[in-house]
């Protein structure tokens, strides 16, 4: 095994779980997420010298992942872009243990239906824990755009963040 290969493998294994998690929130299906991560890592392998020399290899890889997800999103009419998530159970007005599952099911469904840039913004800010500036760097846009995209996304997702206990 070459030095390049060893370095790449160590990097890929280290980032794999995080990439799968982000990919899942971007497409809503573990199988598609796995495909997205595979495609992303193929790209990382092809451009390994550029990735390892980048100021932030992680930002570079996140950008590849988000571009891959966006390309699939754009091809959605021709292929299978994002998962078709079935409607979740009705949320009861009385608290019970199934409500949180159903609420998160609804949250994932709403997240997958957000416009791509809003979805990517939510994933980077709230799953990856990036700052506005870091998110702007990954998405190649201004901090103001990140702020407005975050605001719009959260306005859509707000109703899925109300815990049942607080409503009863």
């Amino acid at each position, binding site marked *: 095994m070459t030095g390049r290969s060893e370095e790449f493998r160590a990097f890929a294994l280290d980032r794999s779980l995080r990439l799968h998690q982000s990919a899942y929130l971007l497409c809503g299906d573990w199988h598609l997420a796995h495909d997205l991560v595979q495609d992303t890592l193929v790209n990382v392998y092809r*451009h390994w010298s550029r990735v390892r020399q980048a100021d932030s290899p992680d930002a570079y890889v996140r950008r590849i*992942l988000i571009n891959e997800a966006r390309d699939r999103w754009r091809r959605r009419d021709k292929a299978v872009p994002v998962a078709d998530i079935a409607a979740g159970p009705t949320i009861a007005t009385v608290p019970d243990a199934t409500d949180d599952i159903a609420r998160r099911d609804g949250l994932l469904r709403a997240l997958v239906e957000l416009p791509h840039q809003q979805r990517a913004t939510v994933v980077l800010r709230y799953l990856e824990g990036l700052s506005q500036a870091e998110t702007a760097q990954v998405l190649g846009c201004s901090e103001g755009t990140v702020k407005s995209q975050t605001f719009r996304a*959260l306005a859509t997702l707000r109703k899925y963040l109300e815990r049942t206990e607080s409503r009863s």
Partner: protein
Amino acid sequence: MSSSEETQLREDLRRIVQADAPAPDLDAIERRGRREQRRAVAFRGLAAAGVVGIAAVGTLVAFRHPSASVAAPATVAPAKSAPGRQATSTAPTTAPQLDNVAYVRQQVDAAHDPANSVVEEKQSGIDAGNPPQTVWTDPATVNEMMSSVIDGGKVTTWQHQYLDSRRVINVDDTQVNYGPRTWSYRTQNFGTPISGPAPTSPVNVVPYIPAAMLKAMLAQGSVKIVGHPVIDGHRTVELSVSLGKQGRAETNFYYVDSQTFQLVRLVRVFAPDSARPASETSDYTWVQRTPALTKLINHPQIPAGFTQVPPGS
């Protein structure tokens, strides 16, 4: 949005993605990466040869026709592209054998292996006039949790099946009714021990879950491939099988995703019978088995303050 909602969102996203991700197939990734690199190099070589060829023709034309004042440029600057924008071919090199029952059987078997860390989520009652119901089944235990709305109130039922020490199948039903805030529990057994060799897994005990039925019928060779319709954006393989006789006859149409080979829809078409609708459709989704979800399916949850009532009341 308040910071408490942002905290809630962070926590929810963390829980949604809480699962073991499969390890990437690094050998396959490296092979594909090298192949695509070679293709890119070959493509650039062809493009360069084309440009040189055009330039040569241009030069020749210019030489033979002095009126032609400007020759074509000999080189073209390569276009810059953002990371991740390079085209990657994801098309399989060989077409899946979607008309081959043996191939489909093999893929369906692998996709519905109870060892897979997935949970089946079924939406039923879609066209049967019954209240819509969502059923989660843990393929590893074949325990079910059903949720529906009856008379405006949510009802959740857990159905757990197991063999006791006498090899008798027992079925426990726990039902929570959120309208009147009551719950009930009932256990039934099938009376006589099951015969034959000892089952090796819960799926062997309770083989009538649709995916297991499909696997069994594929193994028997009684299933035909009848088409490849697209359902909700998924290309599927449509399989049909005829069951029962005369008045109780029914034909089942199974639709499995042509990429994952997981069951996505079951349509049961019944022979004319006043007691039943003409058909019944159930849609299936396969969700990641998370600790929270499996705990919920396999352990009935009675909310505090609910009153126990006799079953059926």
